[in-house]
């Protein structure tokens, strides 16, 4: 109650000043203060925040305007890491401001501080020139700050309108709110059905829910955390239109990303972070991708060594018409998936998450064994493995790096040595049912050394490692078992650039040794960098593969929305022959 009064008085004061300013600018009486907030949001924003919000639609960096948001000396310390170290940041009204940095640079922590989710240990936040303490997200929203989370903050079993009702502070009237959702979503070209359950929405639609949820409250500052990672290239275009429109209406946007090209295209200004500190500010339109990269990681973006694929590999992994109903009620059913991966090539599967990747991976790894009568749909090295468990498939030469590092690829609370035992136990680590500790530790040490895993030795628990180092350990553990077929899901997700390069190079080297590699990833850039052929998964169907050199991101992007030609019959081993071979 107490802090509510102050901003109101403050607002009145600012309003008066800008009102006069407006009168000066237009030279006539102005009664816009009575206009409904939604329709004249930009004008109100001008009135509240100074003329900068209006006159600078194309270039908001006008001198002498109070910044919408100003951070000074923001510092946040976690037990193991200094997430933010004296960060300063200024966002002007109507400005699209990029915060650029690789994984672990402290961007997300900074945004959480602005949105009141986390409290800074030190530093000040100013809103429209006034120092504020943002204690919680509700207060942030009252100030006019909206946030679209990278991992959405939605409730799956509730409907769109119920989800939004929980984040707006107004009387509980779902019908009225549903009408307003439709209104706002139509105005901004973000179609939404308020009555649908969130778990039935695609990731792109979920993002729309989050955006609309913010827009309903007339935000003055919208924070977008890695928004394009869940979108097709075409959907990214539409998102940029929406963001540009919001900006022209006077809404500032903080745009968190590590994608350099996007930032150069969209943003007016960029603040670059590395290791929790601000390492530079720039006008991204004046910079090149490589100059931004230098600011971001302190050197040129490393590139993997990638020679053309050796010819004539044998089919190692064959998926012959795999269909299956997901046993997750919110999952995607797989429909007649056909794919052959040969020794010595990397095949990539692109797609927006939630289109059947999880189900495909579980079917391939054996975590969801097939029905007995579906035995012949998956072959590893000529053997049908459809009804084998993951351990048996590994014995046949299958290696698998899952997307989730903590909890699936590794046991968070166990040491690296114990985590080595998880899948590598076949390599002489178990004798007469007992664990041979010395062998386990030797294997873990070899893995740590070979793949440059920075950690406190094999006794360090998995969760104490950074994402990149743990991922190197997991990839290393699978590689050291000399697989002949390697499946990697999102191998560099959330990993720093250095580790990502190491991991990609390791996969390429593996291919060069004649191993068949299948990479499932949502990052198109990554797939185009390392893959020899690319396919797309959409709504549980798999597209034909394309040789990487003969396609481009636009075409694959189009396929990601499900528009791809039917799959030609890939040459498959004769089914009867396989049955006989058993």
């Amino acid at each position, binding site marked *: 109650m107490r802090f509510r009064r102050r901003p109101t008085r403050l607002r009145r004061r600012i309003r008066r000043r800008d009102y006069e300013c407006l009168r000066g600018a237009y030279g006539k009486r102005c009664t816009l203060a009575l206009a409904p907030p939604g329709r004249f949001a930009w004008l109100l924003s001008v009135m509240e925040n100074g003329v900068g919000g209006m006159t600078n639609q194309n270039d908001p960096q006008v001198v002498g305007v109070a910044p919408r948001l100003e951070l000074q000396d923001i510092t946040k310390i*976690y037990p193991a890491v200094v997430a933010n170290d004296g960060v300063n940041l200024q966002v002007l009204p109507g400005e699209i401001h990029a915060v650029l940095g690789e994984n672990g640079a402290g961007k997300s922590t900074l945004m959480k501080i602005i949105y*009141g*989710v986390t409290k800074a240990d030190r530093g000040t936040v100013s809103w429209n020139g006034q120092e504020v303490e943002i204690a*919680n*997200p*509700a*207060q*942030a*929203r009252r100030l006019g700050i909206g946030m679209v*989370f990278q991992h*959405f*903050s*939605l*409730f*799956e*079993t*509730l409907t769109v309108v*119920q*989800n939004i*009702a*929980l*984040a707006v502070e107004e009387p*509980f009237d779902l019908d009225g709110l549903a009408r307003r959702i439709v209104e706002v979503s139509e105005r901004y070209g973000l179609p939404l059905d308020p009555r649908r359950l969130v778990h039935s929405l695609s990731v792109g639609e979920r993002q729309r829910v989050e955006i609309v949820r913010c827009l309903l409250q007339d935000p003055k500052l919208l924070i977008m955390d890695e928004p394009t990672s869940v979108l097709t290239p075409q959907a990214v275009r539409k998102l940029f239109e929406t963001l540009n429109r919001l900006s022209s209406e006077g809404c500032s946007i903080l745009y968190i990303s590590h994608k350099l090209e996007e930032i150069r295209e969209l943003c007016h200004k960029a603040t670059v972070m590395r290791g929790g500190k601000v390492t530079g500010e720039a006008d991204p339109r004046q910079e090149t991708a490589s100059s931004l990269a230098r600011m971001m990681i302190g050197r040129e973006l490393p590139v993997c060594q990638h020679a053309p694929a050796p010819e004539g590999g044998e089919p190692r992994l064959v998926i012959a018409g795999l269909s299956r109903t997901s*046993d*997750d*009620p919110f999952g995607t059913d797989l429909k007649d998936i056909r794919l052959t991966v040969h020794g010595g090539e990397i095949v990539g599967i692109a797609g927006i998450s939630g289109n059947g990747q999880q189900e495909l991976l579980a079917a391939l790894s054996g975590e969801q064994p097939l029905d007995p009568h579906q035995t012949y749909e998956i072959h590893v090295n000529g053997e049908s493995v459809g009804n084998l468990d993951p351990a048996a498939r590994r014995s046949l030469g299958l290696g698998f790096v899952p997307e989730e590092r903590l909890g699936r690829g590794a046991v968070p609370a166990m040491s690296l040595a114990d985590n080595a035992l998880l899948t590598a136990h076949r390599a002489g680590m178990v004798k007469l049912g007992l664990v041979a500790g010395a062998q386990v530790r030797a294997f873990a040490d070899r893995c740590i050394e070979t793949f440059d895993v920075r950690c406190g030795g094999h006794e360090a628990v998995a969760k104490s490692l950074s994402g990149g180092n743990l991922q190197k350990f997991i990839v290393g553990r699978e590689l050291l078992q000399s697989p002949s077929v390697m499946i990697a899901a999102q191998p560099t997700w959330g990993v720093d650039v250095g580790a990502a390069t190491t991991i990609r190079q390791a996969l390429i080297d593996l291919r060069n040794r004649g191993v068949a590699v299948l990479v499932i990833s949502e990052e198109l850039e990554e797939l185009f960098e390392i893959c020899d052929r690319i396919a797309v998964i959409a709504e549980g169907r798999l597209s034909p593969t394309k040789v990487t050199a003969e396609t481009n991101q636009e075409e694959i992007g189009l396929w990601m929305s499900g528009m791809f030609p039917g799959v030609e019959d890939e040459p498959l081993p004769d089914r009867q022959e396989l049955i006989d071979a058993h």
Partner: protein
Amino acid sequence: MDTFTAIVLATLGAGTPLVFAALGELITEKSGVLNLGVEGMMLVGAVCGFAVAADSGSIWLGVLTAVAAGAAMALVFAVLTLTFQANQVASGLALTIFGIGLSAFIGLGYTSVALDGMDPVRIPVLSDIPVVGPLLFGLDPLMYLSFALFGAVTWFLYRSKAGLLLRGIGEAPDSAHAIGYPVIRIRYLAVLFGGAMAGLGGAYLALVYTPLWVEEMTAGRGWIALALVVFSTWRPGRVMLGAYLFGGVTILQFHVQGLGIDLPSQLLSMLPYLATIFVLVLISRDINTIRLNAPASIGQAFHPSN
């Protein structure tokens, strides 16, 4: 009063403690917390309610004390699991073991005390209507309270914003935290409500149903209430249905003997427990039913720093 009316009344009476305890646990679980200490909370509620009622002579003071005692027990659990991040299964078991000991300790002087119990509300004229009269207008006040609480819980869960939030927190505490709700504080409230309701269930048992204090008099009713929540797939209406079903099974054992069927009493006493196992199997067989209805975060600790 004819036999039918008597059986229905007895069934309602046997089911009511379960209604209270299971509705309370339902709210607790909806917030994503699994409190296995219902048995302990019921016992402590029962003994505290009985002791205060016996000493003060006021049944209603006893009921209030039972509610407070149940909530106090739940507070211990909440501090352990929500503030100290302890394992919910272990903490719930500890609460039950502690509750059994504590209730036996408190109840020492009260094992041979007799109470009058609670008089049914008799609405003149209406309660004299045959069959329907006593069933609708001649129940005891706490039974009417249980109906009211059922209505309130249903309204809360499906018609109010707070109920929506509670369901959301049980579903995805991280999302609720991210949009700014105090997850831990709300879970505290849900756990305390569960404890108060369990205490009320215990009070009904000790002050109205028997009315006596006997060591471990709940005889597994707290656990049956937990099973009822699963059986109901976390829906209040089915909680009521299940509770009266179990009330019926409990009553059955007395009437079977009355009918002259010669079965050992021990076998008949097994019925409620075997029935619990049976319905649990029935409802759990379809894994998707559970997965679609169970609060997704149930049993998992939440820490806002993650």
